[in-house]
């Protein structure tokens, strides 16, 4: 590995500039840059990177094709395993997946697989390469609940196998967290819309404003002739801190804050009908992608001092590395080992957050050092606080489906074929695992399509 060139940095918008807009931060590689970075891959015989990708994208192959200028084929190679390359290239936690395992990472820096995947994905999107003939309908109706990455991947796979697929979405727009959660400066919304249009072109039917369990129950879907159902309803319900003052005005859950901004377009203030009220001093609680997104969004909406309160240390932050760097570049202050214990207000509007200083103890079940209280406290003046400490599934489907087994925290229980306790009903994505990642949800949707296909084939073999 002598004479190895360093990893090629992706061009970015300057921090001072991007703090005032919602345009994408990472600008991506040009073809020349992509090829330069692609040259760094040593084309391992037993590629560790592929093993570490949840959907086993054939990484050395697509990189080789890129180098050979066979871009169409390169796209197809990725698309075989991952129908959302433009999205995953941007939002996968590469450092703990593909890139984290890349052999080059042992002595130097890993290949920038994410940026390469994004480049090839965007190329394919521009050339409409995903628009391919699909088989005619086989007349068997299947229903997909939720239009997040799990539902989209499931629907695409089933449609390609010939099924007549309908996606039911509770909100007025499709894409799940990709639309209402992850901000444009990380994932421009036209990319998500493009993926949804691809599915429409394939003949997938989309029904919005349909809350399964309420508008139609799972049983009613069966009565209507849907022979198998996939539940990909995500983990939308925000967890609370459980401390005094949490219901004061000015205290947001990240979901409310981000939904107001992304789905309801509050950033077009003062023209938005669903605005978001934000003062100068904003605290964000949590250390994941959601917290980083909330903090960076607050900054872009004009908050002067935005700081993150996280009860563990820097190396335990679960957010993508890129996002932590970007947040710091944008002037967001990380206040580590600090745990909010009380919110106080005036006239029922939040004004202060009291935090307890924490120290690190023994590793806990997650392998990270457990944060321990020290009995020392600090208080900060704030105008808003945004809570981003995790999500669990909402109870609507669980409460309205007889015989559907769930975990105590609300997750749907599935067997090794991803079937739930209700025959013919499958599930995958955040609703099964709890809040996880786009690629895991997508993979679960795709795998479930395979199991549903097997199930339906068996069923029809038995009856014919």
């Amino acid at each position, binding site marked *: 590995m002598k004479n190895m060139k360093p990893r090629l940095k992706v061009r970015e918008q300057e921090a001072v500039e991007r703090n005032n807009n919602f345009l994408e931060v990472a600008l991506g590689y040009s073809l020349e840059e992509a090829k330069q970075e692609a040259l760094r891959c040593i084309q391992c015989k037993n590629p560790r990177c592929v093993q570490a990708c949840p959907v086993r994208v054939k990484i050395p192959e697509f990189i080789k094709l890129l180098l050979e200028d066979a871009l169409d084929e390169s796209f197809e190679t990725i698309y075989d395993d991952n129908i959302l390359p433009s999205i995953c290239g941007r939002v996968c936690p590469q450092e703990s997946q593909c890139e984290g395992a890349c052999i080059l990472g042992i002595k130097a820096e890993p290949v920038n697989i994410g940026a390469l995947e994004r480049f090839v994905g965007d190329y394919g999107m521009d050339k409409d390469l995903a628009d391919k003939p699909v088989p005619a309908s086989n007349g068997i109706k299947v229903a997909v609940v939720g239009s997040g990455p799990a539902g989209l991947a499931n629907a695409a796979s089933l449609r390609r196998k010939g099924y007549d697929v309908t996606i039911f979405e509770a909100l007025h727009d499709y894409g799940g967290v990709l639309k209402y959660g992850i901000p444009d400066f990380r994932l421009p919304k036209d990319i998500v819309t493009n993926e949804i249009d691809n599915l429409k072109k394939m003949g997938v039917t989309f029904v919005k404003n349909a809350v399964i369990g309420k508008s139609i129950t799972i049983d009613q879907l069966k009565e209507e002739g849907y022979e198998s159902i996939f539940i990909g309803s995500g983990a939308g319900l*925000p967890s609370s801190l459980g401390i005094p003052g949490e219901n004061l005005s000015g205290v947001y859950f990240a979901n409310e804050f981000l939904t107001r901004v992304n789905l309801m377009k509050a950033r077009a203030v003062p023209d938005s*009908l669903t605005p978001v009220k934000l003062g100068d001093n904003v605290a964000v609680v949590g250390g994941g992608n959601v917290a980083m997104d909330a903090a960076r969004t607050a900054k872009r909406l004009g908050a002067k001092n935005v700081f993150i309160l996280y009860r563990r240390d820097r190396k335990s932050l679960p957010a993508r590395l890129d996002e932590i760097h970007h947040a710091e570049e944008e002037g967001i202050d990380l206040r580590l080992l600090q745990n909010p214990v009380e919110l106080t207000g005036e006239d*029922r*509007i939040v004004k202060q957050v009291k935090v307890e200083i924490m120290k690190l103890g023994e590793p806990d079940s997650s392998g990270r050092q457990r944060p321990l209280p020290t009995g020392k406290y600090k208080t900060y003046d704030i105008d808003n606080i945004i809570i981003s400490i995790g999500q669990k599934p909402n109870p609507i489907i669980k409460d309205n489906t007889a015989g559907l087994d769930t975990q105590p925290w609300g997750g749907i229980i599935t067997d090794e074929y991803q079937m739930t306790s209700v025959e013919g009903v499958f599930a995958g994505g955040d609703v099964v695992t709890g809040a996880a990642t786009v690629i895991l949800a997508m993979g679960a949707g795709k795998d479930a399509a395979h199991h549903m296909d097997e199930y339906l084939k068996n069923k029809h073999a038995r009856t014919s």
Partner: protein
Amino acid sequence: MYKIVDKKSYNQDVDWMLVEAPLVARNAKPGHFVILRVDVDGERIPLTIAGIDGNNVEIIYQKMGYSTKLLGEKNVGDTIEDFVGPLGQAAHIRDKKHVIGVAGGVGSAPLLPQLRAYKEQGAKVSVILGGRTKDYVILKKEYEAFCDHVHITTDDGSAGQKGFVTDALNPLLESDDTIDHVIAIGPVIMMKFVTEMAKKHDRSIDVSLNPIMIDGTGMCGNCRVTIDDKTYFACIDGPDFPGEHVDFDELMSRQNFYKDEEHACKLRLKKQ
């Protein structure tokens, strides 16, 4: 897109509308609500389902601000962009003998299907309909069709008794031992006072809470309310709750948090 099948006005501020929405109509029960967006840039606003007629859903709305006024500008044959439901928990119809409903203004709309359900279950039902003036007492005829007693109060005395709903409720709770349950639906301040009165007279009470909502599926947490020191999401756990332990002051404060911004929207409506 959801077609407006029929529409009428009760007074200059309150309309009734019938909207074609089979996916809402199918499973709707008393106490459920919808969330609608008038047009593609619209905000999501919650309205109670006032009744069901085949595939059509009845709503009754007061033109309070920008979105409800915009809705009021729509006519029969026009369409509404989004209309989702039935959301929330259906009203819990308790085992009671004599129920008195107390409605403030447009609260008489959500109250109607609930009181009807009590009547169908064999309970005696009375109602107090309160409004600013005679014009704001709506659905009187509909209530008269099935209620054992209909009492009217207006702030100015233009119909029924002059005063607030509580002025009519107090003597009834004092004199009529058979009344064993109260339901109050209307402005929060009214529900707060009716709850205090019910508590004083040792009667159980249900109220219908109306915090600001966005998604209505338990995702945003905007709609949280405190009951007996515990947090609930009104869109999935409610909107109906036993009144006794509701933190009404918190609800009022949370409702008012966007007052200035709503005012800005109204100004825009005037400019147009």
